[in-house]
């Protein structure tokens, strides 16, 4: 596996930002040589975090979301930075709702997949860090 790092910008317009995320991930995996199963897990997790940012934090005029993807032999890591409103208490430890609920699973899914899911507010920035450890062999 190569050790690579790439930076992307995601529009705060949901239809554009989601499309750009999937395009960025496809380009990154093309270079990174990560196992398909890990790609699926990471894609699933980061899509939930980005969806939450687009739905609840950012709005028109906030400027693009900065995405940095890094792959090493031991881990896949993403850092997301946006200028949206601060999260008071992102529900990082939220457990999954019951089967019949139609919403409320997003960050629980991300948290269940990732080895690290961190949020912090730095000045006027929301900073997210996502880490998936890569199991060798």
């Amino acid at each position: 596996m190569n050790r690579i790092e790439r930076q992307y910008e995601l529009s705060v317009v949901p239809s554009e930002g989601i499309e750009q995320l999937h395009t960025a991930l496809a380009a990154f995996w093309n270079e990174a040589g990560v196992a398909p199963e890990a790609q699926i897990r990471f894609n699933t997790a980061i899509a939930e975090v980005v969806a939450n940012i687009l739905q609840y934090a950012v709005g028109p005029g906030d400027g693009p979301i900065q995405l940095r993807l890094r792959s090493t032999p031991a881990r896949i890591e993403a850092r997301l930075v946006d200028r949206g409103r601060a999260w008071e208490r992102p529900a990082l430890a939220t457990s999954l709702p019951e089967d019949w609920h139609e919403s409320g699973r997003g960050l629980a899914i991300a948290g269940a997949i990732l080895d690290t899911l961190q949020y912090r507010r730095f000045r006027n920035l929301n900073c997210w860090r996502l880490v998936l450890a890569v199991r060798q062999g």
Partner: protein
Amino acid sequence: MAPEFVKGALMEITVNPVDERTAVVQLRGRLDLLVAAEVKQRLVQAVNEGFRLLVVDMSEVSFVDSSGLGALIGGLKATRLAGGDLRLASVGAQAQAILELTTLNRVLRPYPNVAEALQANL
């Protein structure tokens, strides 16, 4: 914004009647927050039109997020209220993974293909 950019984000939804109580719903694209409300509305509409068993053909769904799962749950609830069922067929690797992770595969049972989903008893 380039037209194909928008096109890529949209989902095609086709409802194909099998008989007066059964329909196969073909989805094409990403089943995510951008299309979840539309998909749920179309599933509920199919139930209101009289279809009790909906088989959702997932063979051309490239990605499912939590909003997409919510749409499927919404459709499942509508069919169950009508005494029927909603079944998934030909689920891809990513969709299978998110169904297992959320344990929703217990209620949204994936079938290997449309024919087997149609044959299973209500």
